[in-house]
Protein backbone atom coordinates (compact mmCIF):
# COMPACT_ATOMS: atom_id res chain seq x y z
CA UNK A 1 0.00 0.00 0.00
CA UNK A 2 1.36 3.43 -0.97
CA UNK A 3 2.34 5.68 1.91
CA UNK A 4 3.40 9.24 2.54
CA UNK A 5 7.11 9.34 3.34
CA UNK A 6 8.75 11.85 5.65
CA UNK A 7 12.30 12.42 6.79
CA UNK A 8 13.90 12.72 9.18
CA UNK A 9 11.69 11.04 11.76
CA UNK A 10 13.38 12.90 14.60
CA UNK A 11 15.34 16.15 14.68
CA UNK A 12 17.02 17.86 17.59
CA UNK A 13 18.39 21.34 17.04
CA UNK A 14 19.41 24.39 18.97
CA UNK A 15 17.43 27.60 18.82
CA UNK A 16 18.43 30.00 16.06
CA UNK A 17 19.55 27.11 13.84
CA UNK A 18 17.90 26.22 10.54
CA UNK A 19 15.99 22.96 10.05
CA UNK A 20 14.35 21.35 7.05
CA UNK A 21 11.83 18.56 6.70
CA UNK A 22 11.09 16.56 3.58
CA UNK A 23 7.86 14.92 2.42
CA UNK A 24 7.13 12.60 -0.50
CA UNK A 25 3.38 12.22 -1.06
CA UNK A 26 1.58 9.23 -2.47
CA UNK A 27 2.23 9.02 -6.20
CA UNK A 28 -0.41 10.86 -8.23
CA UNK A 29 -1.67 12.98 -5.35
CA UNK A 30 -1.97 16.60 -6.43
CA UNK A 31 -2.64 18.08 -2.99
CA UNK A 32 -0.04 18.19 -0.25
CA UNK A 33 -0.46 19.50 3.29
CA UNK A 34 1.92 20.37 6.12
CA UNK A 35 0.48 20.28 9.65
CA UNK A 36 2.01 21.10 13.02
CA UNK A 37 0.92 19.12 16.08
CA UNK A 38 1.92 20.56 19.45
CA UNK A 39 1.96 18.03 22.27
CA UNK A 40 -1.54 17.54 23.67
CA UNK A 41 -3.29 19.23 20.76
CA UNK A 42 -4.74 18.30 17.40
CA UNK A 43 -2.81 19.00 14.19
CA UNK A 44 -3.09 22.49 12.71
CA UNK A 45 -2.69 23.19 9.00
CA UNK A 46 0.39 25.26 8.14
CA UNK A 47 0.33 25.19 4.36
CA UNK A 48 -1.55 23.48 1.53
CA UNK A 49 -0.30 22.97 -2.02
CA UNK A 50 -2.28 22.17 -5.13
CA UNK A 51 0.39 20.84 -7.47
CA UNK A 52 3.19 23.41 -7.10
CA UNK A 53 0.95 26.30 -6.02
CA UNK A 54 0.17 27.38 -2.48
CA UNK A 55 -3.60 27.53 -1.90
CA UNK A 56 -3.59 28.19 1.85
CA UNK A 57 -0.73 29.43 4.01
CA UNK A 58 -2.75 31.59 6.34
CA UNK A 59 -1.39 29.86 9.48
CA UNK A 60 2.23 29.69 8.34
CA UNK A 61 4.54 32.02 10.35
CA UNK A 62 6.10 33.50 7.26
CA UNK A 63 8.83 35.38 9.07
CA UNK A 64 10.59 32.12 9.84
CA UNK A 65 8.80 29.30 8.00
CA UNK A 66 8.92 28.58 4.29
CA UNK A 67 7.59 25.74 2.19
CA UNK A 68 8.08 24.74 -1.39
CA UNK A 69 6.93 22.10 -3.82
CA UNK A 70 8.88 23.07 -6.90
CA UNK A 71 7.92 20.27 -9.28
CA UNK A 72 4.56 19.52 -7.74
CA UNK A 73 5.72 16.26 -6.23
CA UNK A 74 7.82 16.24 -3.05
CA UNK A 75 7.98 19.15 -0.67
CA UNK A 76 10.31 20.78 1.85
CA UNK A 77 9.33 22.74 4.95
CA UNK A 78 12.04 24.97 6.43
CA UNK A 79 12.33 26.85 9.69
CA UNK A 80 14.98 29.55 10.08
CA UNK A 81 15.72 30.43 12.79
CA UNK A 82 14.16 27.77 14.99
CA UNK A 83 12.65 28.89 18.30
CA UNK A 84 11.87 26.92 21.44
CA UNK A 85 8.15 27.13 20.69
CA UNK A 86 8.64 25.31 17.39
CA UNK A 87 9.10 22.01 19.21
CA UNK A 88 6.29 19.85 17.84
CA UNK A 89 5.43 17.03 15.46
CA UNK A 90 5.36 18.12 11.82
CA UNK A 91 2.99 16.01 9.75
CA UNK A 92 2.72 15.80 5.99
CA UNK A 93 -0.43 14.56 4.28
CA UNK A 94 -1.55 14.14 0.70
CA UNK A 95 -4.80 13.65 -1.15
CA UNK A 96 -5.74 12.96 -4.75
CA UNK A 97 -7.25 16.33 -5.63
CA UNK A 98 -8.06 18.20 -2.41
CA UNK A 99 -11.80 18.05 -2.84
CA UNK A 100 -14.44 17.41 -0.21
CA UNK A 101 -14.68 13.70 -1.00
CA UNK A 102 -10.93 13.18 -0.83
CA UNK A 103 -9.24 11.38 2.01
CA UNK A 104 -6.04 12.86 3.38
CA UNK A 105 -3.34 10.28 4.05
CA UNK A 106 -0.78 11.16 6.68
CA UNK A 107 2.88 10.34 6.96
CA UNK A 108 4.57 9.25 10.21
CA UNK A 109 5.70 12.78 11.01
CA UNK A 110 8.94 14.47 12.03
CA UNK A 111 9.32 15.15 15.73
CA UNK A 112 11.30 18.38 16.23
CA UNK A 113 12.91 19.29 19.54
CA UNK A 114 14.44 22.75 19.84
CA UNK A 115 16.89 23.18 22.72
Amino acid sequence: EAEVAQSPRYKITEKSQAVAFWCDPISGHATLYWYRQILGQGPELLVQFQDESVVDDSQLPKDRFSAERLKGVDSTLKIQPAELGDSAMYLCASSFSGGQLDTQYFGPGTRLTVL
Partner: protein
Amino acid sequence: AQSVTQLDSHVSVSEGTPVLLRCNYSSSYSPSLFWYVQHPNKGLQLLLKYTSAATLVKGINGFEAEFKKSETSFHLTKPSAHMSDAAEYFCVVQRGTSYGKLTFGQGTILTVHP
Protein backbone atom coordinates in the same frame (compact mmCIF):
# COMPACT_ATOMS: atom_id res chain seq x y z
CA ALA B 1 -15.66 29.33 10.26
CA GLN B 2 -15.55 25.75 11.39
CA SER B 3 -14.61 24.15 14.69
CA VAL B 4 -14.71 20.86 16.54
CA THR B 5 -15.11 20.19 20.24
CA GLN B 6 -14.22 16.81 21.68
CA LEU B 7 -16.06 16.68 24.97
CA ASP B 8 -13.68 14.33 26.80
CA SER B 9 -9.90 14.60 26.87
CA HIS B 10 -9.59 11.10 28.39
CA VAL B 11 -11.89 8.07 28.30
CA SER B 12 -11.16 4.88 30.18
CA VAL B 13 -13.01 1.60 29.56
CA SER B 14 -12.59 -2.07 30.34
CA GLU B 15 -11.89 -4.55 27.58
CA GLY B 16 -15.14 -5.90 26.16
CA THR B 17 -17.25 -2.89 27.20
CA PRO B 18 -18.68 -0.25 24.84
CA VAL B 19 -16.73 2.80 23.74
CA LEU B 20 -18.25 6.28 23.28
CA LEU B 21 -16.12 9.24 22.19
CA ARG B 22 -18.10 12.47 21.90
CA CYS B 23 -17.69 15.18 19.28
CA ASN B 24 -19.65 18.34 18.49
CA TYR B 25 -18.94 20.43 15.43
CA SER B 26 -19.64 23.87 14.07
CA SER B 27 -19.47 24.69 10.37
CA SER B 28 -20.77 27.43 8.12
CA TYR B 29 -20.84 25.03 5.21
CA SER B 30 -22.19 21.56 4.63
CA PRO B 31 -19.33 19.72 6.30
CA SER B 32 -17.55 16.48 5.87
CA LEU B 33 -16.67 14.87 9.18
CA PHE B 34 -13.97 12.35 10.01
CA TRP B 35 -12.52 10.36 12.85
CA TYR B 36 -8.79 9.69 12.80
CA VAL B 37 -6.80 7.51 15.22
CA GLN B 38 -3.18 8.03 16.25
CA HIS B 39 -1.25 5.24 17.91
CA PRO B 40 1.97 6.17 19.73
CA ASN B 41 4.80 6.95 17.33
CA LYS B 42 2.60 6.28 14.31
CA GLY B 43 0.88 8.46 11.75
CA LEU B 44 -2.78 9.40 11.74
CA GLN B 45 -5.05 6.73 10.31
CA LEU B 46 -8.54 7.36 8.96
CA LEU B 47 -11.21 5.42 10.88
CA LEU B 48 -14.29 6.65 9.02
CA LYS B 49 -15.78 9.63 7.20
CA TYR B 50 -19.17 11.23 6.66
CA THR B 51 -19.79 13.06 3.39
CA SER B 52 -23.57 13.68 3.36
CA ALA B 53 -24.59 10.17 2.38
CA ALA B 54 -25.86 7.80 5.09
CA THR B 55 -25.93 9.37 8.53
CA LEU B 56 -24.65 6.18 10.19
CA VAL B 57 -21.11 5.59 9.03
CA LYS B 58 -19.22 2.37 9.54
CA GLY B 59 -15.46 2.40 9.73
CA ILE B 60 -12.57 0.07 10.28
CA ASN B 61 -12.01 -2.13 13.33
CA GLY B 62 -15.69 -2.16 14.30
CA PHE B 63 -16.05 1.58 14.87
CA GLU B 64 -19.03 3.57 13.70
CA ALA B 65 -20.32 7.13 14.04
CA GLU B 66 -23.68 8.79 13.61
CA PHE B 67 -24.11 12.24 12.10
CA LYS B 68 -26.88 14.17 13.89
CA LYS B 69 -27.43 17.54 12.27
CA SER B 70 -29.99 18.70 14.84
CA GLU B 71 -27.49 18.11 17.63
CA THR B 72 -24.40 19.06 15.57
CA SER B 73 -22.80 15.89 16.86
CA PHE B 74 -20.70 13.09 15.37
CA HIS B 75 -20.01 10.68 18.22
CA LEU B 76 -17.76 7.63 17.72
CA THR B 77 -18.85 4.27 19.13
CA LYS B 78 -17.72 0.68 19.29
CA PRO B 79 -19.72 -2.12 20.91
CA SER B 80 -16.79 -3.91 22.52
CA ALA B 81 -13.38 -2.40 23.25
CA HIS B 82 -10.18 -4.25 22.52
CA MET B 83 -6.79 -3.62 24.07
CA SER B 84 -5.47 -2.60 20.64
CA ASP B 85 -7.99 0.28 20.55
CA ALA B 86 -5.93 2.21 23.10
CA ALA B 87 -4.81 5.34 21.23
CA GLU B 88 -5.67 8.99 20.70
CA TYR B 89 -8.73 9.78 18.59
CA PHE B 90 -9.37 12.98 16.68
CA CYS B 91 -12.68 14.29 15.40
CA VAL B 92 -12.16 16.37 12.27
CA VAL B 93 -14.34 18.71 10.21
CA GLN B 94 -13.65 19.69 6.63
CA ARG B 95 -15.11 22.78 5.04
CA GLY B 96 -17.55 22.03 2.26
CA THR B 97 -15.64 23.67 -0.56
CA SER B 98 -12.85 22.72 -2.88
CA TYR B 99 -9.42 22.32 -1.34
CA GLY B 100 -11.09 21.45 1.94
CA LYS B 101 -9.10 22.41 5.01
CA LEU B 102 -9.25 19.94 7.90
CA THR B 103 -9.87 21.32 11.37
CA PHE B 104 -8.98 18.91 14.16
CA GLY B 105 -10.39 18.61 17.64
CA GLN B 106 -8.08 18.49 20.64
CA GLY B 107 -8.16 14.71 20.78
CA THR B 108 -9.47 12.08 23.18
CA ILE B 109 -7.07 9.57 24.71
CA LEU B 110 -8.71 6.17 25.03
CA THR B 111 -7.37 3.83 27.68
CA VAL B 112 -8.50 0.19 27.70
CA HIS B 113 -8.06 -1.82 30.90
CA PRO B 114 -7.83 -5.62 30.88
